[in-house]
């Protein structure tokens, strides 16, 4: 009896030493809880990526505070060549303008952008509004309410920018995610929502405009916001891989190559197809410039809408 207990204790100790030794493995931080939309893409990305690098990877979910806690952890691991973050758009290009964070857009070594999906402006199919013009007209008597997946998220910013740049009268009601917002839209608690094709396809929604610089394949009759007389607003939900600053150029190069191969692999492509994630690879330099540009644009939107502190 006693020996069994001791051996169990020893086993537990062996377990911890193993974890300590394994610190050389690559750690992939996902700043959302397991099973979320970003997490499943990250977990499908991981196997091929690790294989390319020839390492064992561990996906670690560090959730909280609009994905900034996990992102901060990557930024704070300066010089560590064994940690990367699989990051959503908001944590890199919006949150740093909204509140004081231990990181900014310059705190990372940019590796690659993996996927990107343009956002649509949508109303419920049960409403009789069929065009953006009609939406603007009907909003004059009584302002509409638009939902979002939370304050300072992309759906919020896209709509805030639309309201600032057009005659549309609408006010913001944040929810705790796209799901609850869809429930509110179905119950006519809110009337407008901006989100991606995944949401559009899965619910009874009618797209009125797309926040992109060209019409989207499969939605040829949905005009871009620019065609509707607004400034060219470009809002897309994208994800990408970043590493902390201070890693060697050689390591950054390895990451970048592994990412390119992964994103172009059949395995990842077939997953992206199923999950309706639009593959949109950008290499290190392009990705860095892209994030910088998005950061500036979003900052401007936040200031125009009176949301920046």
């Amino acid at each position: 009896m006693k020996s069994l207990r001791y051996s169990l204790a020893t086993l537990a100790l062996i377990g911890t030493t193993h974890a300590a030794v394994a610190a050389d493995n690559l750690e992939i931080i996902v700043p959302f809880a397991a099973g979320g939309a970003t997490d499943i893409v990250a977990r499908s990305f991981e196997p091929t990526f690790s294989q390319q690098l020839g390492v064992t990877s561990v996906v670690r979910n560090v959730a909280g505070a609009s994905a900034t806690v996990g992102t901060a952890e990557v930024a704070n691991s300066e010089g560590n060549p064994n940690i990367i973050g699989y990051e959503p758009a908001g944590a890199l290009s919006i949150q740093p303008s909204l509140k004081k964070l231990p990181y900014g857009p310059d705190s990372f070594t940019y590796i690659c952008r993996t996927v990107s999906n343009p956002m649509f402006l949508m109303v419920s199919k049960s409403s009789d509004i069929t065009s953006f013009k009609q939406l603007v007209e009907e909003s004059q008597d009584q302002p509409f309410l638009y939902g979002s997946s939370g304050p300072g998220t992309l759906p919020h910013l896209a709509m805030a920018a639309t309201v600032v740049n057009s005659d549309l009268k609408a006010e913001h009601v944040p929810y705790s995610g796209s799901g609850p917002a869809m429930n509110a839209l179905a119950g006519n608690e809110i009337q407008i929502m901006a989100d991606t094709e995944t949401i559009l396809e899965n619910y009874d929604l009618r797209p009125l405009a797309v926040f992109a610089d060209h019409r989207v394949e499969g939605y040829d009759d949905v005009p871009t916001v620019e065609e509707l007389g607004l400034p060219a607003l470009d809002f897309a939900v994208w994800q990408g891989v970043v590493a902390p600053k201070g890693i060697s150029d050689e390591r950054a190069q390895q990451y970048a190559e592994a990412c390119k191969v992964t994103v172009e692999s059949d395995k990842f492509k077939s997953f992206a197809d199923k999950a309706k994630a639009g593959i949109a690879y950008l290499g290190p330099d392009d990705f860095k410039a892209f994030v910088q540009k998005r950061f500036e644009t979003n900052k401007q939107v936040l200031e125009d809408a009176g949301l920046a502190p």
Partner: protein
Amino acid sequence: MDVILAAVGDAFTWQALLAIVIGTWAGIIIGGLPGLGSVVGLTIFLPFTFGMDVITSMALLIGVYCGSVYGGSITAILINTPGTPQSAATTFDGYPMTQQGRVDEALGWATFASFFGGVLSCVLLIFCAPQLAKFAVNFGSIEVFALVCLAMLCIVGISRGSLLKGLVCGMMGFFFSTVGSDPITGADRFTFGTYALSSGLDLIPVVVGAFALSEVFVRFSARDEEATTIPEARLRFPSLREIGRRLIELVRGSFIGSFVGALPGTGAAAAAFISYAAAQKLSPRRANLGKGEPDGIIASESSNNAVTGSAFIPTLALGIPGDVVTAMMMGAMVIHGITPGVRLMADQAQTVYALFVVLIIVNVAMLILSKPSIGLFRYLFKLPLGFVMGGIVMFSFIGAVSVRGNPLDLVVAALTGILAYVLRRGGYPLAPLIIGMVLGPALESSLRRGLLISRGDFLSFFTHSGIATTLFVLIGLFLVWTVAAGILDWRAKIADRRQPAESGARSATTQEGRP
């Protein structure tokens, strides 16, 4: 019909059945260990499902989910420490029954109520998912606000001894829940400039501290040997006659759970509290609630397990996950190419029916596996107390940190443990703290969203919709009832105290007492 038969065929493959057995058993154990709950269990098993087919992977995850919701009740009853927040309400009557030496009966009712709730909600899911989903859509922010207010009132019922102490703890829980990002503006609140606090206080570390750690402290500080021993876990199922006697409680709990589970953003812990509040008003044996009455266990366990089935209603019918757990399940479905949404039922009927069949098998498996699982806990708790308590502390901290991977949660768990110990020493009930923490965020965000929607007019809440009006009337009735009962009680007490005194002196004091 062909679709259903094909679906049954899909569910009865050896892979799926094996996955159910492994998942359910692992779920019961994980749920029973304090700190490790449904989310941790699913996080552990999610990566294993990537290589499986859809039904097998969903069978594994559903097994873990349902098993963990049930498993939480085992430790709630045995050592007054709910294994998961969903089982917090089970401690109210489960632990008193243990103290009275009725462990076998308590575990039997918990097991049977879990099974009953789970199966009834499956049946509802099969026959009225679309209707329930449509009804749930009518539950907007204002209706949710009314429902949460109603649930909050159960703090009154469980604060035996001192209502004031209960309210203080309830408010404390509510304030804990306001730390972090503001749900409407996104601004940081009560973070004192500390970045780590901006993600807020998570429920699991607080529950782990309040129940598991404080229980360990209480047991270590107790001098009395007798008080610290853990009774042997046994299981005795209630007889058919006993079930018949309490059938109405089982049905009520299951229906409340099924209904609350179908609403987005509430979840099993809230359902258990709402169901317990209902039992306090409606059970014929309500006077005994909180003193070791099986009705309390039934209310809690039938409703929280009913949520496991009905939480799939918004997920499958609308693609809207009701809580974190179903959100994870939805993620697992997407990996396998099934995207939940309004068209799922039409496009993938066979898969959906197979999931229903799996849910029912899981509940049956849970009933069968309850005995060996409780046997395992009996063995674990036979170890010297130091090992058991050490293990509880270890799992508590693992559970606290593994939800979000935030080291802050370890500190939160430890501090809550110390705070809870002090509160318990002062005779403060801890359950209201958890209720405040569970319902606080829903109360706050539904109120503030409701105000945005009604454009700042609170009075229009009462007339917003039939559902809202009904709920507010119920709240009014409850308050009048409680106050009236309180006054009657108080007068009876005064009359009792004065009984021995002379009638003349009595009338004199009464007159003096009047201004």
